[in-house]
């Protein structure tokens, strides 16, 4: 989520009888808890009731307890600002974000449809490439992309599932509809926070949690294990490993967490070797064969024999073992071609093309500068749009039109004209807000929603998600590296 920060100047404070919400300003964005008229939405009623009885000091105490618990468990990510690498927690907000059963049903249907179409697309671009011949997606977008892995051409993957673990970012627009902002199809992360948040927030509100009928998510590691197992060509004694870049990776905690929760080995590239097309780990008792690898390393680094020669994270010969079918890798290689910012714009067309269905979840309207009509529209409306470079992430190479100066916009227009294929543009969306406990009071903060989809033999979505929250007032940036926090997400049973 890189929308840049927008101030809610148009927001009008609503007078509230309750002291806790005195500063709760409702504005243009959709609010998860309060309807436009200031009444509490029905599915938040039980929580609101409970909160009304809790003095702010008690809330503060519970918030502190929850943060301490994270620190002690070591649920941290590492920030490399200078030579000193410091470990920080991602702040967890105590107040859960609640999703109704009906909303969830639609999200689940939409995401299953989406991942289905994306997997068919990947099967196609690494196979017959009909989607290119039929002119649905321009060829240069595929052949010119650095994420296109020609090594994957004509290889088949189990169950046709290239993307086994997907984390899609959804946001709720002003009208209250969920739209997809981004698909993460390579090595999506954050699921450990989903589980850890549940652990602490349930303890903070045990009674409300029980009364509201919140659906369980604790079985995620088991579902992930089942998904990974289903990739093996046989079904007994499947040996699985989580492949991590190592302890210095910012998501190391998650890798270790998932390995432990699944009861499988956590390995680094240097623990593995390939002999006669078979992958082994080196243990004190000898070599142990590995059948399925859940890798949290980028394609480029996974096998120095085939991809980046200078990779020391990978395993030489791994890809050939994979090609020979002696080891399965999740996610498959080359999935990055389908979560490219430019390809994103084509996903609704892909859903229609492969499934002959209308998309259940819409995209954010996206203008591809490579298309001439869009280009002129983008250049004429730079002051209202967010422009993103296709190949970049983490907020680099981006223009937030409403916040940029005239000179900045002119400069960016030059860049777009020079290389239109490299840019897309989207209108700025006001993400929905949810009540968040900040400095002793409850205030609205912008949130997104990242559910996790598993696909092996079956497609499974655990009814929960990581809700990321922009802790700075008015900010739309929910990334943890830029002051974002997270919330537990309660999906109601019905």
């Amino acid at each position: 989520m890189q929308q840049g920060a927008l101030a809610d100047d148009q927001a009008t404070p609503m007078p509230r009888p309750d002291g806790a919400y005195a500063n709760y300003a409702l504005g243009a964005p959709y609010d998860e808890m309060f309807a436009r008229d200031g009444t509490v939405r029905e599915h938040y009623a039980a929580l609101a009731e409970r909160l009304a009885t809790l003095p702010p000091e008690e809330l503060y105490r519970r918030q502190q307890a929850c943060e301490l618990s994270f620190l002690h468990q070591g649920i941290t990510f590492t920030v490399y600002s200078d030579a000193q690498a410091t470990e920080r927690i991602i702040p967890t907000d105590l107040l859960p974000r609640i999703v109704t059963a009906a909303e969830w049903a639609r999200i689940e249907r939409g995401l299953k449809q989406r991942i289905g179409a994306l997997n068919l697309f990947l099967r196609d671009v690494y196979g017959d490439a009909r989607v290119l011949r039929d002119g649905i997606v321009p060829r240069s977008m595929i052949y010119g992309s650095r994420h296109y892995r020609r090594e994957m051409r004509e290889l088949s993957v189990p169950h046709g599932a290239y993307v086994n673990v997907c984390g899609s970012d959804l946001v709720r627009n002003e009208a209250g509809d969920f739209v997809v902002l981004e698909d993460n199809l390579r090595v999506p992360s954050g699921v450990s926070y989903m589980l850890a948040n549940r652990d602490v927030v349930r303890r903070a509100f045990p009674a409300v949690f029980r009364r509201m009928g919140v659906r369980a998510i604790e079985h995620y590691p088991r579902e992930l294990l089942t998904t990974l197992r289903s990739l093996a060509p046989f079904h007994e004694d499947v040996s699985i490993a989580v492949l991590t870049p190592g302890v210095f990776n910012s998501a190391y905690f998650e890798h270790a967490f998932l390995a432990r929760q699944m009861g499988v080995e956590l390995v680094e590239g240097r623990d593995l070797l390939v002999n006669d097309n078979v992958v082994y780990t080196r243990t004190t008792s000898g070599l142990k064969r590995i059948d399925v690898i859940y890798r949290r390393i980028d394609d480029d680094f996974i096998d120095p024999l085939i991809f980046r020669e200078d990779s020391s994270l990978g395993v030489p010969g791994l890809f050939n073992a994979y090609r020979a079918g002696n080891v399965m890798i999740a996610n498959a290689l080359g999935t990055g071609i389908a979560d490219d910012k430019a390809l994103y714009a084509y996903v609704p067309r892909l859903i229609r093309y492969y499934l002959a269905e209308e998309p259940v979840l819409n995209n954010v309207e996206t203008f591809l500068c490579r298309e001439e009509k869009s280009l002129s529209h983008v250049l004429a409306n730079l002051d209202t749009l967010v422009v993103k470079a296709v190949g970049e992430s983490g907020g680099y190479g981006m223009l937030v039109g409403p916040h940029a100066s005239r000179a900045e916009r002119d400069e960016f227009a030059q860049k777009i004209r020079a290389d239109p294929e490299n840019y897309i543009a989207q209108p700025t969306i006001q993400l929905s807000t949810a009540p968040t406990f900040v400095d002793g009071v409850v205030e609205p903060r912008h949130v997104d929603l990242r559910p996790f989809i598993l696909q092996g033999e079956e497609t499974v979505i655990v009814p929960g998600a990581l809700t990321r929250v922009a802790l700075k007032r008015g900010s739309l940036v929910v990334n943890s590296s830029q002051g974002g926090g997270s919330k537990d997400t309660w999906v109601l049973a019905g």
Partner: protein
Amino acid sequence: MLSRVAESLYWMSRYVERAEHTTRLIAVKLESMIEQTHEESHASWRRVVAALSAEKHAKDAAISYDFTNILTFERANPSALLLSLRNARDNARQVREQLSTEVWEHLNRLYLRLQPITIDAIWVHHPARLFREILEDMHALEGVTNSTLSHGEGWYFLELGRHIERAQLIGRMLDAHFGATQAAAPKYFDWLVLLKFCTAFEPYCKAHTAALKPDTIAEFLLFDAEFPHSLRFSVDRVCDALTRVAPGAAPARRAAVERLAGRLKAAVDFGQIDELMGGGLAPYLAEITHQCEQIHTSLYASYIVYGAETVL
């Protein structure tokens, strides 16, 4: 267990043992200074330096301040306390998931506590106190290691690291006191300090009364079966741990390292102090150190860096 994990646990433990030993030596040395003349104190420091293999870095050290600084903070000195602790922590970090929260937090806190301190900050007022406190923390670390970790294969790799390191440290300590290399012969007070260096004063007195006889001290530190800082105790722990690690390894791979450990055990079990005291101690200690190194090498060759082709 992954070989890499075993390796990190092994080294973490070796460095913890080395750090504890260094801390203890410095603490005891600083506390005993008031009862020594300058010359005595200097000779005693030299023995500490020799016991910690820091001769090269402490060549020019003249006063206690220098010695303490070099043995604790000097970055060029690979056996400096701070470096041992950092290495222990770095290894622990690599296998954070294999450790209990208590062990990790204890070690992490210990390092973070010492890391910002400078020699000048501690020197102004009762420098021994810091080392005493760190020593207490190290004992607590050993306690949580034993009480919060499952005593499975990983724990036995910790045992191997601790006792292979300890056996070598005892050897060097005895060499520094009984060897021919020292400047001045130890006096009565130095024997007492030696026992304190090894936390052996009280156990020794219980076994042999307070009559401090060099031969008896050497025998106690080498061959006592029950005292945890004796050579024999460590060798027994090593032999025991070796039967517990790598449960699935082929007998041929186990045999190599277990044979070496058996040989070391025999050398210790059948060692006779009266045979050693007539000039035989130095070669005996050298042989023990050599055998420890061989066990280390063989441990690596069998379980950590073995040629993959040898196990297929």
